[in-house]
């Protein structure tokens, strides 16, 4: 029996899942804590645990698929190696790149690297050369940097319309050094020279990091006697061989969420369109499945302040989760999130004194409002005096917020300080959360429910409700907010700006749709036309009601806590080549823009026919390189014609886009190798 091992390193946990290739069944799964310093350690622990669960033989594993947050985190944290970015013909875009200037340190923030070299060359929008490529300047730049730079990135102005200069530059660099080279046109076919350059630079920076991870993971797997090939998940959910991922690591951003969406689909057994809603402790992620694949964001994923050109899964993230802070708004209604706190029940199960304190507060609310602060770890390094005092107050365990305020005195700007220390992971706050509400209602029973009951009593007293009723409201509010966010996402995907959602008219209609105005003369029903697939531990508690409000079905699959690892295991290899035919000025010719150059034709259909003949071999090479076994090719054609005013003749032809997509299963190990 051949098995695929799926692995996902998430923010908190690393998951491993063993999926039977023929049936798609999840045979075993396990979790370990993610070891951020060296991801391979947590990976090894999770995999070993999964194998041990049913004493599988490592030889049965035919393929390993890894989804990792390494790229996303590295970009967010600003990590990466020194790289050189070569810009060709950019004087039009960046004034600092005027002919003759070199080495632009000032552009570091915009272009993700300090080391930027501008050389002459480049094309116009039609793909015509504007200036010959300055090959000497490229050679000089490489010579100066030999041994100092880990990778090169090359981006040419309008390089996606004509890649000739980028490819020539790449060849020159490859002649002179072993360092990897990334070109803008290899990462995207879309315009925006500045963002393209940044994306290429980010890619180059990530290469050594991902290479390091893959090498250690492969060693870890060998240590567990697993000899199967390793594939990596990309941000669109597709799989590529490890060697490919080491060349194009930037494509792995958002791979975790993408794998999660695919895993949800697989576990739910739904083939068509659906919404995947992942409810976590802090956030809820919403993504759409269209035709069984995650809907991608054509604008490119935004990570760490950079707007990249990588088309990854389009995830809408909301500050709403099981551990969201429940407060009361001006009208004394519960609002949930976006801040996250420790649930009272969780705090009390570690520090029983909290229950006593809550009793005191219920007896006399002047003593407190059900909020606590605790220290997470001792501080290292210097702290301002007031912060040090605060931490000393917390040395013996969590303290009620009010007591802390009294101990420290008024001038200390307590809330600001707490927030700053929270951001540095030095303290955490605890307060009432939806998790507490579930404990009160008996729907979730892991921690100290007495603390939850007392916390509920404190808040419920402020709104004159019985604690049970208040808790039902909290749960209902979570369900409602999830519904609102789904509606906003559905509309957003159809081009309706989210700003429109807060208008008074829209608000009134929504309130009635979400059953907030039972006595209204107007009944409003909003129907989500596709089902929800809900994953994440708290999903069961909140989302069935959301589905009800939106008049749609809901599936809550089992094993959803390892949806990402499962999604990695069931991924396909998907490669795409996009070419464009455009009218060439007024000569009546049509220009075909291929990945390796441009060609002109007298008739549109001639160009289309040529593309159908020339592109499939390119696609085949990519699919092989990415690691596909057999694959199918799909072609879509999109002709763009724009209407003119009446009486002015026919439509204006703008161009034709042909997209060739290869979808195949990854090539497993044949035969399985026993390394014991």
């Amino acid at each position, binding site marked *: 029996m051949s098995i695929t091992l799926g692995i996902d390193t998430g923010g908190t946990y690393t998951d491993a899942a063993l999926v039977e290739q023929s049936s798609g069944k999840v045979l075993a799964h396990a979790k370990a804590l993610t070891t951020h310093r060296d991801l391979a350690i947590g990976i090894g622990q999770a995999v070993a645990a999964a194998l041990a669960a049913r004493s599988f033989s490592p030889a049965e594993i035919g393929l390993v698929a890894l989804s990792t947050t390494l790229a996303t985190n590295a970009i967010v944290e600003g990590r990466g190696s020194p790289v050189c970015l070569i810009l060709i013909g950019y004087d039009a875009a960046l004034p600092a790149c005027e002919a003759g200037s070199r080495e632009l340190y000032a552009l570091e923030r915009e272009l993700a690297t300090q080391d930027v070299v501008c050389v002459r060359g480049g094309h116009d929008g039609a793909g015509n050369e504007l200036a010959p490529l300055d090959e000497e300047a490229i050679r000089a730049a490489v010579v100066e940097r030999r041994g100092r730079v880990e990778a090169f990135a090359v981006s040419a102005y309008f390089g996606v319309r004509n890649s000739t200069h980028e490819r020539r530059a790449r060849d020159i660099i490859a002649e002179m050094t072993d360092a990897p080279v990334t070109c803008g046109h290899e990462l995207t076919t879309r315009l*925006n*020279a500045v963002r393209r350059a940044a994306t290429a630079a980010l890619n180059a920076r990530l290469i050594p990091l991902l290479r390091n991870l893959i090498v250690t993971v492969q060693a870890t797997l060998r240590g567990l006697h697993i000899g199967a090939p390793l594939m990596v998940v990309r941000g669109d959910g597709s799989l590529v061989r490890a060697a490919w991922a080491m060349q194009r690591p930037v494509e792995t951003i958002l791979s975790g969420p993408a794998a999660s969406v695919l895993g949800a689909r697989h576990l739910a057994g739904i083939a068509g369109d659906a919404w995947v809603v992942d409810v976590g402790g802090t956030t809820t992620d919403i993504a759409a499945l269209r035709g069984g694949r995650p809907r991608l964001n054509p604008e490119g994923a935004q990570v760490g302040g950079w707007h990249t050109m990588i088309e990854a899964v389009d995830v809408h993230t909301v500050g709403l989760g099981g551990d969201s802070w429940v407060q009361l708004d001006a009208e004394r209604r519960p609002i949930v999130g976006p801040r996250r706190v420790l649930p009272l029940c969780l705090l009390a199960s570690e520090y029983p004194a909290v229950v006593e304190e809550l009793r005191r507060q219920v007896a006399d609310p002047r003593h407190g409002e059900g909020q606590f602060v605790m220290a997470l770890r001792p501080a290292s390094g210097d702290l301002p005096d007031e912060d040090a005092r605060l931490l000393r107050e917390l040395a013996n365990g969590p303290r009620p917020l009010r007591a802390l305020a009294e101990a420290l005195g008024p001038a200390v700007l307590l809330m600001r300080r707490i927030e700053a220390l929270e951001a540095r992971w030095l303290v955490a706050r605890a307060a009432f959360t939806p998790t507490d509400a579930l404990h009160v209602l008996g729907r979730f029973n892991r921690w100290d429910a007495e603390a939850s009951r007392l916390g509920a009593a404190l808040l419920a007293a402020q709104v004159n409700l019985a604690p049970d009723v208040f808790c039902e409201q909290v749960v209902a509010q979570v369900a409602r907010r999830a519904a609102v966010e789904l509606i906003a996402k559905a509309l957003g995907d159809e081009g309706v700006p989210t700003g429109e959602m807060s208008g008074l008219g829209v608000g009134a209609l929504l309130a009635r749709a979400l059953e907030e105005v039972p006595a209204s003369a107007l009944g409003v029903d909003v129907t989500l036309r596709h089902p929800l697939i809900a994953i994440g531990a708290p999903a069961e508690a909140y989302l069935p009601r959301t589905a009800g409000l939106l008049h749609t079905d809901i599936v809550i699959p089992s094993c959803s806590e390892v949806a990402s690892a499962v999604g990695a295991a069931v991924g396909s290899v998907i490669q795409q080549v996009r070419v464009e035919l455009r009218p060439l000025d007024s000569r009546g010719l049509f220009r075909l823009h291929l990945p390796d150059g441009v060609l002109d034709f007298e008739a549109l259909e001639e160009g289309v026919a040529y593309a159908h003949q020339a592109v499939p071999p390119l696609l085949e090479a990519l699919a092989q390189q990415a690691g596909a076994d057999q694959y199918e090719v799909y072609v879509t054609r999109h002709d763009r014609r724009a*209407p*003119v*005013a009446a009486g002015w003749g026919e439509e204006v032809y703008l161009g034709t886009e042909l997209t060739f997509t290869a979808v195949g299963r990854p090539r497993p190990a044949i035969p399985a190798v026993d390394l014991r």
Partner: protein
Amino acid sequence: MPDILQTIAKKLYAGEEEEVARLVQQALDEGMTPSEVLKNGLIAGMDEVGRDFKAGDLFVPEVLIAARAMTAGMNVLRPLLSKSEVRGVGTLVIGTVEGDLHDIGKNLVKMMMEGAGFEIVDLGTNVKPADFVAAVRQHQPQIVGMSALLTTTMVNMRTTIEALVEAGLRDTVKVMVGGAPVTEAFAKDIGADAYAPDAATAVETARRLIA
């Protein structure tokens, strides 16, 4: 509203160039601030012209001579207005696209927009995409306006927009297009922000885009 400003507006509407220039000077001599004269005299007059033109009560030639009177008044005020006051509302970079030499429509829009308080950078006709890009970089306008009167040159509106995207500048401006063969649907298809069928609507649309 002081009488003299109302008179300036009336004279402007009637296209009486010399009177407008004379009265503007007189208003300044009487102690009014340049920006007050601009706003409540000249712009007020042009707004009325725009309204009536849209309603069909004024025709293009009449608009043109009113615009000339506006210019005459502006010539008196311009040296006295501080840079920020002139730019008050915003800057418009405008031109007819590459391959196209028509300019009447463009000039009408230009004058109406100037009347509405915009600073204008007129690139002329037959403007290459790269020149639009350079002008955006240099003047940092709020709005880029493009005009075309041939179906064969309309496609250059799209080429210009693409040039702005490639330069990383597309998000820094609003793009407005117009010209007899152009339609709202065409504007949407090529990625423009707005379409205006005539000069008066152009002013309204521009104000809405930068609000």
